């Protein structure tokens, strides 16, 4: 039997490392474009203060970039070490964008990071600005390629299963790259990064203003962050809506769980603003509903129905039955490739094969699977509702709260009176961690919401993990968490140190490395 402890621990390890990694990434994404804005202001106006701003925020960017790289590299290895079956099954497809990311985007980014820090004396003003732009492009290109890989796991387009090699093979590279799910994830995620960068700069600048430190420097940084943050927040919300639409097209089970929608209702479906989902009863204990809203947002139509969880499970039950036939036919074909009946059966049921594999959690031999096992597998085919329902609402709530903050910050920047609004400055300071909370919630929604699949509809999570021992997994989890916590402490220490120093950190005595 498959050892579910090993699968759960492998998931825990991946989730933990990914969550640590994604503490660093969004700030890198956001700060990179803020640096471009600041340096452009320097090149256009020739004012030294903008160069100092670019250098100072660039220093914080550098610290963050280094830790992001350190935590990111290990994740790529985990596919091989912890997810060997997954890697065999889909590595030819999933590996392509990852390899392009490493060889193209990451190399571009890291080369430009070097030139950014050490090129101030050696490059012309315009040349250095070009480096900063390329650095930001490299960072964003990295994100697009990683999200193409993740988008394919959410919606595996452009590929087909080869029963001889027992792998998925890529048949349409353009479909992989232009996968609408990947594109909507990319724009939503980078916009989340821009919000993070903006709130970081806004919060630290507010702290300087509250303390009366580096006032001119902080005022200009505040203004730029407010404008960039407003654009970022508006984008993240509009593009979040786009992500929701993409999910409604490709993963109805995720959407139904996010919305705690147990029953299918007449179009356009109502939106549960708040509810108390009860998994056992398959109903909400109570709910506050806004009529029509979900249907309109998720389908962009008044007539399209959205299936509820019960209907999705019933439909999946049928797909599971058909999928079991596919797996049995595949097994027969592997014994005797000339078996015509098996060939016909496989061709008929192939598109449901992944669903058949869901039953392997309960019965290693699918020929022996009982109806109760099939029912259980159908039940598993929709993720648990409450965790998704609440994390999604947390993300959305924070999105609107941050929009209000940057909206006001922008308004008072235009009116040139933000310095007097100490409540706004305090709010900005306390809101520095909020984008991170929203982002971690977002990733939880995306990844937990995809369960029980690693590749949606194709490969169940419990068949993807390597056959490691629980002891070695506990060991590596402890190692990763311990080491990454140290890195996080180091990052926080350096960030606090340089943020406290402010632009004084640019003086050689404060920073001998001039980095």
């Amino acid at each position, binding site marked *: *039997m*498959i*050892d579910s402890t090993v699968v759960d621990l492998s998931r825990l390890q991946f989730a933990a490392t990914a969550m640590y990694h994604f503490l660093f990434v969004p700030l890198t994404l956001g700060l990179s474009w803020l640096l471009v804005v600041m340096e452009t202001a320097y090149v256009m106006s020739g004012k030294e203060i903008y160069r100092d701003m670019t250098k100072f925020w660039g220093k914080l960017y550098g610290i963050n970039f280094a830790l992001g790289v350190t935590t990111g590299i290990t994740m790529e290895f985990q596919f091989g*070490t912890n997810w060997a079956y997954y890697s065999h099954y889909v590595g030819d497809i999933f590996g392509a964008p990852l390899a392009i990311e490493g060889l193209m985007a990451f190399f571009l980014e890291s080369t430009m990071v070097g030139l950014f820090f050490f090129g101030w004396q050696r490059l012309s003003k315009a040349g250095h600005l070009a480096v900063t732009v390329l650095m930001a492009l490299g960072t964003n290109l990295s994100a697009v390629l990683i999200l193409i890989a993740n988008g394919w796991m959410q919606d595996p387009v452009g590929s087909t299963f080869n029963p001889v090699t*027992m*792998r998925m093979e890529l048949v349409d590279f353009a479909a992989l790259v232009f996968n609408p799910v990947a594109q909507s994830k990319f724009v939503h995620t980078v916009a989340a990064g821009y919000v993070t960068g903006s709130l970081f700069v806004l919060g630290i600048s507010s702290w300087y203003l509250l303390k009366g430190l580096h006032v001119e420097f902080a005022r200009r940084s505040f203004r730029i962050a407010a404008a960039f943050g407003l654009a970022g927040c508006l984008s993240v919300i509009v593009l979040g809506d786009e992500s929701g639409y993409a999910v409604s097209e490709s993963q109805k089970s995720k959407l139904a769980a996010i919305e705690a929608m147990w029953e299918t209702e007449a179009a356009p479906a109502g939106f549960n603003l708040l509810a108390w989902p009860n998994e056992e009863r398959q109903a909400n204990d109570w709910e506050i509903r806004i009529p029509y809203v979900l249907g309109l947002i998720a389908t962009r139509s008044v007539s399209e129905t959205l299936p509820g969880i019960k209907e999705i499970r019933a439909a999946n039950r049928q797909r599971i039955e058909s999928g079991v036939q596919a797996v049995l036919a595949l097994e027969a074909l*592997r014994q005797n490739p000339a078996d015509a009946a098996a060939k016909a059966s496989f061709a008929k049921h192939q598109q449901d094969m992944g669903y058949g594999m869901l039953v*392997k959690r309960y019965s290693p031999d699918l020929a022996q699977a009982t109806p109760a096992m099939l029912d259980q597998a159908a039940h598993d085919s929709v993720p648990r509702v409450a965790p998704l329902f609440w994390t999604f609402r947390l993300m959305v709530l924070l999105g609107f709260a941050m929009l209000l903050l940057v909206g006001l910050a922008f308004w008072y920047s235009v009116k040139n009176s933000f310095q007097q609004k100490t409540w706004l400055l305090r709010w900005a300071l306390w809101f520095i961690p909020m984008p991170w909370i929203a982002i971690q919630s977002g990733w939880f929604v995306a990844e937990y919401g995809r369960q029980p699949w690693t590749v949606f509809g194709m490969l169940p999570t419990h*068949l993807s993990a390597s*056959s490691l021992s629980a002891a070695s997994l506990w060991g590596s989890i402890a190692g990763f968490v311990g080491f990454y916590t140290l890195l996080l402490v180091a990052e926080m220490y350096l960030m606090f140190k340089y943020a406290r120093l402010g632009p004084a950190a640019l003086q050689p005595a404060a920073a001998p490395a001039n980095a």
Partner: protein
Amino acid sequence: MSAQDVSSARPRRGLSAFLARHRLACHLAVVLLLKIILLRVLWLNYVAPYRVAVDEQRMAQQLTGSTKQPIREVHHDRFDGR
């Protein structure tokens, strides 16, 4: 002029001259070498022994689960060739 002065003024030759001229390159080469050795040691001790051999046969066994060879997810399927 003392003997010491004479020797320090004399242009150095061979390896020491080369090392003096390319100090940075030498430092980088040493660091790179140490890094490679460290990574190799880590790999041999912590990664290679845990390699999971997956081929189409094992994948078929994992996905279709032949009745003759039920998959048991314990230590047996470790690849221990180094």
